[in-house]
């Protein structure tokens, strides 16, 4: 799949932002006034910034409001509804903390659940794709939720929680990569089922329908970067999981914490780039590219 920068930025930043909102909703850390304002500003900048980035890849962003209508069937629509509901509820909850020194606990819990729901619905947009076997697994929501909770804990300064959640996310990341590498072959979709010609013999693409490229090839048969996939996995794992844990285990300083957060975000972004760049869509079979 084409690793569109807008979608990578969106899933990375908004995952982190909603992760922070989950912790803030639970009252961890229990902040009020200007400190709460700073936390909420960071969370909203990440969550809303990510959502705005995601609209950049739309053909018609001005019609994006219509995406709230199909929550009965569409995970993308559910994500939109969940995200807006989470942001509204958390805004009310945050206003209580910042301006009135009051923690409306129940509202915070609702906001936390909605924020978690946003991360979950985002992950289901990818998980539901039977056409991309690498994504089509319960490990995908598990991984994306773990990364969001771990990143949120890191930003919220919940060090002990982060020290548990980052390794969990790291283990899920490894499992997701290992399972993903065999997913296409295990899906049962191949040239034989794509063409229905398998009972005659071995099928090979002889001639594509056109000499140039097309939307399908650009969007879904993206091959760039597979060469460095293993190196990038190493970088993603080292920056995203190993380094933050190592830095958190050192005596606490704000400088180290900032480095840990930046390393984590960079690592997750690299992992997210691979999430798309390594994903093989079954339509590639018709072009003999799998």
């Amino acid at each position, binding site marked *: 799949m084409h690793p569109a920068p807008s979608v990578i930025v969106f899933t990375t930043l908004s995952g982190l932002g909603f992760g922070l909102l989950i912790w803030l909703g639970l009252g961890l850390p229990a902040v009020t006034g200007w400190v709460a304002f700073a936390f909420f500003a960071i969370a909203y900048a990440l969550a809303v910034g990510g959502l705005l980035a995601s609209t950049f890849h739309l053909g018609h962003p001005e019609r994006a409001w*219509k995406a709230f209508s199909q929550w009965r*069937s569409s995970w993308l629509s559910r994500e939109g509804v969940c995200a807006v509901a989470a942001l509204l509820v958390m805004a009310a909850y945050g206003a209580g903390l910042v301006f009135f020194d009051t923690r409306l606990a129940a509202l915070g819990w609702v906001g936390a659940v909605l924020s978690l729901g946003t991360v979950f619905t985002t992950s289901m947009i990818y998980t539901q794709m039977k*056409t991309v076997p690498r994504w089509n697994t319960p490990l995908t929501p598990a991984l994306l939720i773990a990364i969001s909770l771990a990143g949120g804990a890191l930003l919220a300064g919940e060090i002990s929680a982060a020290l548990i959640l980052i390794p969990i996310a790291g283990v899920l990341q490894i499992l997701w990569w290992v399972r993903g590498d065999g997913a296409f072959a295990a899906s*049962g*979709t191949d040239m034989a089922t794509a063409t229905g010609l398998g009972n005659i013999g071995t099928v090979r693409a002889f001639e594509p329908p056109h000499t*140039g490229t097309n939307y*399908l090839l650009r969007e879904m048969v993206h091959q760039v970067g597979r060469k460095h996939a293993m190196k990038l996995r190493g970088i993603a794992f080292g920056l995203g999981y190993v380094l933050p844990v190592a830095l958190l285990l050192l005596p606490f300083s704000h400088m180290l914490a900032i480095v840990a957060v930046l390393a984590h975000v960079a690592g997750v972004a690299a992992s997210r780039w691979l999430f798309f760049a390594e994903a093989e869509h079954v*339509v590639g079979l*018709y072009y003999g590219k799998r």
Partner: protein
Amino acid sequence: MTTLPETTTRKLGLVIDLDTCVGCHACVVSCKGWNTENYGAPLSDQDPYGADPSGTFLNRVHSYEVQPLATSAMPHPAAQLVHFPKSCLHCEGAPCVTVCPTGASYKRVEDGIVLVNEADCIGCGLCAWACPYGAREMDQAEGVMKKCTLCVDRIYNDNLPEEDRVPACVRTCPSNARHFGDLGDPDSDVSQLVAERGGMDLMPEQGTKPVNQYLPPRPKDTLDQPKPAGDIDILAPFLEPVMDEPKGFLGWLDRTLEKI
């Protein structure tokens, strides 16, 4: 509404004969010709006369080489070339419809055609991801998703002569490799053709339940195989040599040259 209908009254679709398709791409051209100037946004091209041309097509023809396995009777079986037209299969379980966040994609209850309401399409591209067949292409000029409409603006069009009320690809196919009809009616011509020829689903394991069916190529003549006993070719006797010995001038020349 992007939930799929439980059932559709009819299941209009195509039956594509992989045995008779000659790979001429006439259906590709006629499809683009009709659909660029009728339903919805035109099918744009980018850099059409330049170094890197690409464009939106609703129907494309692939070609595959199928190599049969060697057997003791046929140690070197000839590969077979199969031309493979591919457009939207108007699936009963269309995954492209349910993922649509705006309700732009829908499957019609009356005839099962899968369409895009372009005024509602935000161009997110998710439906193209959900389709295993590559049937949907985002138009780069318009920013909306384009797909085969089964020529919905031809098949019900009273302004056209009756023989033209079929999809443009079907109307134009010079080798009758494309057939249009109601695959929900077991007595329709297309359903009978599917039953007779063993029509198949593409990627059945994807669970899309495509309406369009593909007819597999018939077994080919095998020139390099030993001839079966008996006269199987009714034309062969007519092609037997009618004369063993040349006559006339050529006969004289032949006999004279033999003597030298």
